[in-house]
């Protein structure tokens, strides 16, 4: 059944609240209530229950990470939150308004797949969304420049995506989302194509960005340590249909960076995540293996 998560009240969370300098009852930014997603039967494939029922309150300005076995419905969760996918049951709200069939203003998404446009240079990829909004050229230039510097792509502004590595293309997608200055940023395994060192550094950059912009971030990742290191809360999902088994509070200070990986509680958090997911991952793999037979 639905595992509800937002654990309001005092306790260990009090410290992190203070550091977040948010009011005691943090504003809910994005909210799921009783959400289920069933992909309908199509072209011979049977209907598939991918997600839920699930409840989630993303608090304004928090960094929430989602981990879970492959195919458990993480990307589906992201699409539901973004308003890209209609829910079968339940309600989705963003900034107090119900989402119906359209992505609300203020939401940015970095997809799991490479979404950079191969017909545009890196610069034009970044400027694309701003141009469609009719922003003036000067503002576009300065925003694109900043985003390029932030993602380490300044030297590749004139390159086409085909000339970049997979990890660099993923950075283009991250930068392209950042330039639109979303209030809710949804990241679907954005560091999947990066090597471990770049991954850590990009994690630090995302943390810095998160502090500077005050945006709410939901990060999907398959790396437990990454989730434990970056997020305020980590939601561990069950195998399909995905539900939250538990949501773990990390209680990191707001001005953290990748060096907290050496903190004592870090190991405890990743350990807890793994104990939650071990069986689920087994189930997921078993189910897949069963299907193959």
């Amino acid at each position, binding site marked *: 059944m639905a595992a509800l998560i937002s654990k309001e009240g005092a306790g260990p969370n009090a410290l992190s609240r203070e550091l977040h300098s948010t009011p005691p009852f943090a504003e809910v930014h994005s909210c799921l209530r009783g959400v289920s997603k069933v992909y309908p039967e199509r072209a011979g494939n049977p209907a598939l229950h991918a997600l839920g029922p699930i409840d989630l309150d993303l608090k304004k300005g928090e960094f929430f990470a989602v981990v879970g076995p492959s195919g458990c419905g993480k990307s589906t969760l992201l*699409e539901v939150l*973004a308003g*890209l996918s209609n829910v079968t049951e339940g309600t989705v709200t963003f900034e107090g308004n119900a989402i119906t069939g*359209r*992505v609300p*203003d203020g*939401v*940015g*998404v970095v*997809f799991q*797949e*490479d*979404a950079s*446009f*191969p*017909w*545009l240079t890196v610069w034009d990829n970044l400027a*694309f*969304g701003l141009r*469609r*909004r009719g922003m003036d050229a000067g503002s576009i230039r300065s925003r694109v420049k900043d985003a390029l510097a932030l993602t380490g792509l300044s030297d590749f502004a004139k390159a*086409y*995506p*085909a*000339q970049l590595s997979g990890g660099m293309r993923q950075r283009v997608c991250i930068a392209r989302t950042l330039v*639109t200055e979303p209030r809710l940023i949804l990241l679907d395994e954005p560091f999947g194509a990066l090597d471990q060192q770049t991954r850590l550094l990009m994690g630090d950059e995302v943390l810095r960005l998160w502090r500077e912009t005050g945006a709410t971030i939901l990060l999907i990742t398959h790396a437990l340590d990454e989730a434990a290191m970056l997020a305020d809360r980590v939601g561990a999902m069950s195998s399909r249909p995905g539900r939250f088994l538990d949501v773990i509070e990390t209680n990191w200070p707001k001005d953290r960076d990748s060096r907290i990986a050496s903190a004592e509680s870090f190991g405890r958090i990743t350990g807890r995540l793994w104990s939650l997911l071990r069986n689920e991952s087994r189930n997921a793999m078993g189910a897949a293996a069963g299907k193959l037979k």
Partner: protein
Amino acid sequence: MTRANLLQIAVFAALFGLLELGTQMGWISRFTIIPPSEMVTGAYNLFASGKIVPDFVSTMWSVIVASLLAIATGFVAGAMVHSLPQLRRTLDPFFASYYAVPIFAFYPLFIFIFGLTDIPKMIIAYFYAVVAMMINTMNGLDRMPAVYSKTARVLRMSGTAKTFWVTLPAAMPYVFTGVKLAIAYAFLGTIAAEFILSTSGLGHAISFAYLNFDNNGLYSNILIVLTLSVVLNMVLFYWERILLTRRGLA
């Protein structure tokens, strides 16, 4: 220029030289084929005297009108059919067998309706071109990653904006193949229609020379048609290379 290019030119020049030698030495009868050098001077004279200009203009006009119409309507129709999977399934056998249907069978009908004007050959050229454009447009749209559409939706773009700024450029390499084929088919349809029954055009000039045992005129005109189609193809090929190289597809 690459080695392959040089080799191509060398092979072409060698064949040309052999033909020249064979015809000049009398190994090949002048009634079968004339020396290439005479084809070139003949073609040049046809232009210099202005004799061929009306035919040339008539053919080009038909190719341009038919291919432009086919490209525009083929793209729109292809996009429409693509967005209606039900309709597409119904039409699939039609697309698959379209080029097996002798469109020329309908040519007399068009002449009957429109008379011996330029319109029947344009219609033939159009019908040859339009389905290639449709099929390639649909093919391009099929291959557009779903994540591009999602990106457009996250950017809250309207349907038209998405079509213009995302769908069209994403499908461009395939659309371009459609454009290339549409022009080639329009050219083919036009020349062939002129050949069968027409009062103007390069196809008509070839047919006319042939019926009058005018070998010089025949081969000069064939040379013009060949040169035209090769030049056209080279221009399109060059564009396509740029497009594909940019995307790392070439």
